[in-house]
């Protein structure tokens, strides 16, 4: 880990967003992860996305479990709310927080161990319920904190650093998320910020359960020949279906796209996603098609990345439960308990 503090100096010509913040204002403490960790690039991407969206840091709650990935919320958004919960329990803590205060932006940060092993059930239920959140899995395929055992997302047939071959089948979290009804599903790669940053931005603007699986090479235990989560392997097998730009407000669409290659998706909050298609036949509104596409390409050893599915008209848990617009944690006692007269009236209506 690095012991010197990152200097407070910043580039004199650094741009500011609508709030007058530079991207440096969205940083947290200096990372204590291994040098070169993919997670640090995801951290940088989250910082960049929040900066670009001009998010007020105090409106964000970042919630994580246990693991290398779950340490990262300490390294971004130093002025936001944070909760480092029990191993695998990020989704339920996040769900509870979201129910209590629907006004915050929820960032769930987890890893493959935290979400595909100990927290697999929690992951499934938070997606199934449609909690309005951005659920990011920093997926490196190994248990890095315990020195590199295969995790549940390690591909069958891939080799550990010591040369052992993995004989278990891998859990594909993207496939599960699609099946469980996530309304924004994407996969990306920590080494490709031009794809990852807009995906995170679009997911934050999405209302409903957004899930992003980010393949993030473990520099210490999973970046060797034989690994399917190494920088080289992912770069060679990356099959991006699209790239995107997030358009907030009334920005005109840049005109340098070739005609017919851009698909506009308008989200619930009015923000738009300009999808630059790479695979002309890929339809990001077809859940079933996405699942088939994913399986087919996985069988060929390809890693499909990009925005895989989005339902722009998605609903979230609060709509399902028909809760009031006011965050529950701000409701006063007289609203929550309107008194015996009201109770009598309800009882009377049921007689």
């Amino acid at each position, binding site marked *: *880990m*690095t*012991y*010197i*503090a*990152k*200097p*407070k*100096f*910043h*580039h*004199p*010509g*650094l741009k500011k967003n609508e709030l007058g913040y530079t991207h*440096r204002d969205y940083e947290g403490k*200096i*990372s204590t992860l*291994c*040098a*070169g*960790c*993919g997670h*640090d*690039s995801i*951290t*940088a991407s989250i910082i960049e996305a929040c900066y670009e969206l001009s998010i007020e840091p105090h409106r964000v709650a970042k919630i994580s479990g246990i693991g290398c990935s779950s340490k990262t919320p300490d390294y971004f958004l130093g002025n936001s709310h944070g909760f480092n919960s029990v191993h695998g329990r990020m989704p339920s803590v996040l769900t509870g927080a979201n129910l209590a205060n629907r006004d915050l932006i929820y960032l769930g940060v987890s890893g493959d161990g935290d979400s595909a092993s100990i927290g697999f059930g929690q992951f499934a239920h938070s997606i199934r319920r449609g909690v309005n959140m951005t659920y990011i899995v920093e997926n490196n395929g190994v248990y890095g904190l315990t020195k590199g055992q295969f995790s549940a997302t390690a591909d069958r047939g891939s080799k550990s650093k010591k040369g052992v071959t993995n004989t278990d089948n891998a859990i594909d979290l993207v496939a599960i998320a699609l099946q469980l009804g996530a309304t924004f599903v994407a996969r990306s790669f*920590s*080494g490709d*910020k031009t794809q990852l940053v807009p995906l995170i931005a679009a997911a934050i603007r999405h209302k409903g359960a957004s899930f992003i699986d980010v393949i993030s*090479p473990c*520099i210490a235990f999973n*970046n060797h020949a034989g690994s399917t989560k190494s*920088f*080289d392997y992912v*770069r060679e097998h990356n099959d991006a279906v699209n790239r995107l730009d997030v358009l907030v407000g009334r920005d005109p669409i840049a005109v340098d796209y070739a005609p017919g290659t851009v698909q506009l998706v308008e989200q619930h909050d009015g923000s738009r996603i300009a999808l630059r298609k790479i695979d002309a036949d890929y339809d990001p509104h077809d859940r079933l098609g996405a699942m088939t596409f994913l399986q087919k390409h996985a069988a060929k050893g390809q890693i499909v990345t990009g925005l895989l599915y989005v339902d722009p008209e998605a609903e979230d848990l609060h709509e399902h439960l028909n809760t009031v617009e006011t965050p529950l944690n701000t409701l006063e006692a007289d609203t929550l308990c309107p008194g015996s007269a009201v109770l009598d009236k309800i009882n009377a209506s049921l007689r």
Partner: protein
Amino acid sequence: MKPTDIAAPDYFHKVVDCQWACPAHTPVPEYIRLIAQGRYSDAYMINWKSNVFPGILGRTCDRPCEPACRRGRVEETPVAICRLKRVAADFKDDIKQRLPHPAAKNGKRIALVGGGPASLTVARDLAPLGYHCTVFDADPEAGGMMRTQIPKFRLPNSVIDEETGYILGLGVEFKGGHRIESMKALLAEKYDAIFVGSGAPRGRELDIPGRKEAAANIHIGIDWLSSVSFGHTDKIGKRVIVLGGGNTAMDCCRTARRLGGESVKVIVRSGFEEMKASPWEKEDAIHEDIPILNFLVPVAFIHDNGKLTGVTFQKVKAEYDAKGRRSLVPSGEPDQTIECDDVLVAVGQENAFPWIEQDCGIEFDKWHMPTVDQKTFVSTNPKVFFGGDAAFGPKNIIWAVAHGHDAALSIHRLLSGEDITERPLPDVQVSSQKMGIHEWSYDNDISIDKRFKVPHRDKIVALKDIRAEVELGYDVKLALGEAHRCLNCDVQTVFSTALCIECDACADICPMDCITFTANGEESDLRQRLKAPAPHADQDLYVSSDLKTGRVMVKDEDVCLHCGLCAERCPTGAWDMQKYFIEMTYAGSSCPTRSRSAA
């Protein structure tokens, strides 16, 4: 862009902005680190080798290094490089044992005309090689304008004596009080080479009405200063006007305040901002209650039967043409007369070579300046060299030193039978500063620190004694604080394409957003596509060869803090922090020239 050739000695040299800007290329960060470690003598010797007069320059240098300092680009003020140099001089131990020993004479004789910084530098480089150097000066003691024109309250005699003494102690013969009146006669003495470092000794005149009639109270600035310096002048009228806006004017006005001038004014033609004087010298003058009035052009000296009573000025304003060139035009307001008892004229200096005859093979141009080669400093007479103010007109001490080093190299090559136009390359060393996984051999914990002020003597005391040095210099604690502000720009970020796995760790951690991985392109195009704008074209882009993904690494050197976080966060050691040390070529450098090594 083509991959950057970091093996070219100049590439990393330019990144060390202070050293690059210094005419003598003093290794500034190297000596500042030594000061921080308390190794003052070592710091002094690095300076001594490079700029010859650390104690003198640490008080008086024009500091081209400071406007170049990177700290000034990331914070408001540069590192006080100049005053740290003085710290090395103030706190050093006895360094006499470290000086070169007078060498056995090689039988060759060099005459040096003028005992100022240029000539003394030549002597300092050549005497240890066995040359018999004879320095001639009209004044009784060595130092030239450093001794005669810089007031003692800025530069005490003891410092001049010490540092000129180091050079004369190398076996240099000094002939004080010996003015060279004829170049022809000097040539007839059959010296093997002659170096002319006689400065720009003539103060420019101001020929306006009343000059002759009121001459008794109108003094030429540099002549007056040297007269004060030698004790011939010890008083001046109560109301003094100093005409001119350069550093000599600042010395005149502050000296006048100490010799009885109660109301001293500096009056300049230009605007205050465009004055030639260094900002800190203007500050010091203002601090001593000397107002600086601008946009006033002197048109006449007013006198009462030869007794000066004042100066009349025309009021002007600045106008700029389409090309941004300034001209001063009358503002139309009525002329203003300012009363005074004495006037000091400090409107510039000129070269004067009345002692060089037309027919001794030395060509002069239409401005009466000798034709001197910019690189070798040789005149049209192959045995006669020029340097300092005598070569290209008035500059300052550090330029004179730089000229002296180069001229000494030429003289040495000439007398060794080598081609003087061929200049051996400097010696460059680059070495990793990594000590352990997270340990670096330099202080890279960079924080925002404002420049520390140099303590001054109390004004009332200072104004009473013309020999009392105003600046007291940093104490050890302040010096340490100021030394810590140095960003160690000589510890270079060195990138190795073959080791890079493009994990982005360096680009993510860089506090200044200097590093970008992107598709290659033309420089003008690349500058637009970096993580942070790179508008300063004089600051290089460091471009790698093609990486695995076909992209390149581009680093804008401009505001890099040299904090080493890129190397710290690099998993493969593709970034390393390596100290760059350049040893300029001096006379007698052991480094062989290209042609010699080929032969």
